[in-house]
C-alpha cells in the first residue's frame, strides 16, 4: 500500500514526522527539567507553573492556536521581535507547526516524567552524594536513568499527540500544502470535499499504520529499557 502513495501523501507523511520529531526533541529537555523541578522542589508559584503547563490541554486547541497567532504572528509582539532581531518567524511555516505541536504535547510529556521522578528513591541520590558525586551529575547518572521509563512514556504520549495535533496547528500556521499541511490537516482537507471520502480513508489508514508502527517501536524500546534497568543478565 505504501508503494502506491501519492507524492502529496508522502509529503504530508514526511512533514508530519518532521514536525513531530522536532516538537518532541525540543520539548523533551524542557519537559524533563520542568518535571524534575515540579517533583523535587516546593516554591511559591509551584502550583501556578503546574497549572500553566496543563493549560493547553484544557483550552480548546483552536484557542491555543489563536493565542499563539496573537503572540507570535508576524504582527504579534513577540513575533515582531523575533522577526526583526533574528529574521525568524514561526508563523505559517513548519517551525510554527512544531511549536504548536510541542506546546500541545507538553503537559502529556511532563506528567509521566514527573511521576517517574517522584518514584525515584531519594536514598539512591543520597548514596550518590556520599560517593562524592555532584548534584547535577547525580541527576544525570542516577535520577534520570531511573526515571527513563517515565521519560519514554511521556515522550510516546507527546509524540502521538504531536502527530495528531490539529486545532492549534491549523489556527496558528494554517493549512499550507508542503509547509504546514501534516497528515492530520490533509485528512481534514480531504473530508471537507464531498467526494474526498476515498482520499480521507486512505489518509486515515496511513495515519493509523504510522501510529501503530510508532507505538510498536516505542513498546519495544520500553521493554528493552525495563530489562536493562531491572538488570536482566546477559
Amino acid at each position, binding site marked *: 500500500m505504501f508503494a502506491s502513495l501519492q507524492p502529496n501523501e508522502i509529503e504530508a507523511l514526511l512533514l508530519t514526522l518532521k514536525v513531530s520529531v522536532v516538537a518532541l526533541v525540543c520539548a523533551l529537555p524542557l519537559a524533563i527539567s520542568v518535571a524534575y523541578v515540579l517533583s523535587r522542589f516546593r516554591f511559591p508559584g509551584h502550583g501556578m507553573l503546574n497549572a500553566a503547563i496543563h493549560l493547553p490541554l484544557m483550552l480548546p486547541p*483552536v484557542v491555543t492556536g*489563536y493565542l499563539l*497567532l*496573537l503572540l507570535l*504572528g*508576524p*504582527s*504579534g509582539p513577540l513575533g515582531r521581535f523575533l522577526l526583526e532581531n533574528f529574521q525568524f518567524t514561526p*508563523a*505559517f511555516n513548519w517551525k510554527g507547526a512544531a511549536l504548536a505541536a510541542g506546546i500541545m504535547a507538553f503537559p502529556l510529556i511532563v506528567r509521566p516524567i514527573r511521576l517517574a521522578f517522584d518514584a525515584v528513591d531519594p536514598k539512591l541520590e543520597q548514596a550518590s552524594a556520599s560517593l562524592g558525586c555532584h548534584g547535577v551529575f547525580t541527576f544525570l547518572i542516577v535520577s534520570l536513568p531511573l526515571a527513563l521509563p517515565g521519560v519514554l512514556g511521556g515522550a510516546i504520549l507527546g509524540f502521538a499527540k504531536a502527530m495528531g495535533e490539529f486545532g492549534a496547528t*491549523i*489556527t496558528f500556521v*494554517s*493549512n*499550507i*500544502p*508542503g509547509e504546514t499541511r501534516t497528515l492530520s490537516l490533509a485528512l481534514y*482537507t480531504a*473530508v*471537507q*470535499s*464531498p*467526494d*474526498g471520502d476515498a482520499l480521507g480513508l486512505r489518509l486515515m489508514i496511513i495515519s493509523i499504520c504510522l501510529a501503530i508502527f510508532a507505538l510498536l517501536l516505542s513498546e519495544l524500546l520500553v521493554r528493552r529499557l525495563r530489562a536493562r534497568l531491572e538488570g536482566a543478565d546477559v
Partner: protein
Amino acid sequence: QAQDKITVFAAASMTDAISEIAELYQETTNTKVVLVFAGSGTLARQVESGAPADIFISADEAWMTYAQDRGAIQPETVRFIAANQLVLVGPASSATQVDLKVDSILDKIGPLRLAMADPDTVPAGRYGKQALEGLGLWQPLARKLAPMENVRVALAAVARGDTPLGIVYASDAAVEPRVRVVAVFPPTSHASIRYPAAVTTHASTQAMAFLQFLSDKNAQTILRAKGFTSLP
C-alpha cells in the same frame, strides 16, 4: 526557470470548486497556486496576522468585513465571485417535497434531529438560522437541531441517515448523490449568500490576475457545475 506563485486562502466550503479553478489557472498561466483551506474565521484572523496570503476568499461577508476593518485586505479589490442557495435536504430515498412548515418538518424529523451548520460559528449556520427565523420555524425547531462543526458534516449526517433532514448549501447538495433537495429556502428568508474575494494588503502582483480569473467565464462555469449560483 523560476515559477510565479500565489497563495490563496479560501473557505473550506469551496474546496472543490477553487481547487479546480486553480488547476485551470495553473495550466493557462503557468503560475503556481498554493491553496489553503480552513474556516473563514480562521483564515480571516490569519490574514489579519500577516499570513502569506495573496487572495482571501471568505464564505460570508462578515469575515471579509472583519478583515477589511483591520486593514488586512485592499478594500477596493473586494468582489463577489459566487452566490449560493440554502436548501433542505433529505436522504436520496425521500420521495416527497417537504413543506417548510413546522408540522411537516417535525413529522419528518421524528425522534431525531435536524442537521445544520453551527448557527453561531459557521456562515451556513448563520444563514440557516436567519432562514428559519424568517419562516417562523426557529422557535419550534430550536431544540431539535444538531448544529454541526461545518456544512460538510451536516451533509454527511443526512447522507448516512443519522438525521432525516439537513440544511445545507445547494452547492453541497449538488455533489452528494446520497441526498436530495426536498425544499429550497426562499432567498428572501435570509441575507443573500455571497462569496467575497479580495487581494490582501501584502499581496504579490500576480494576485489581481487570479482575482480577475475567478470572475471569468471559465471559472464561473466550474462554480456553477459545483452547484453555486451566478451572482444576481
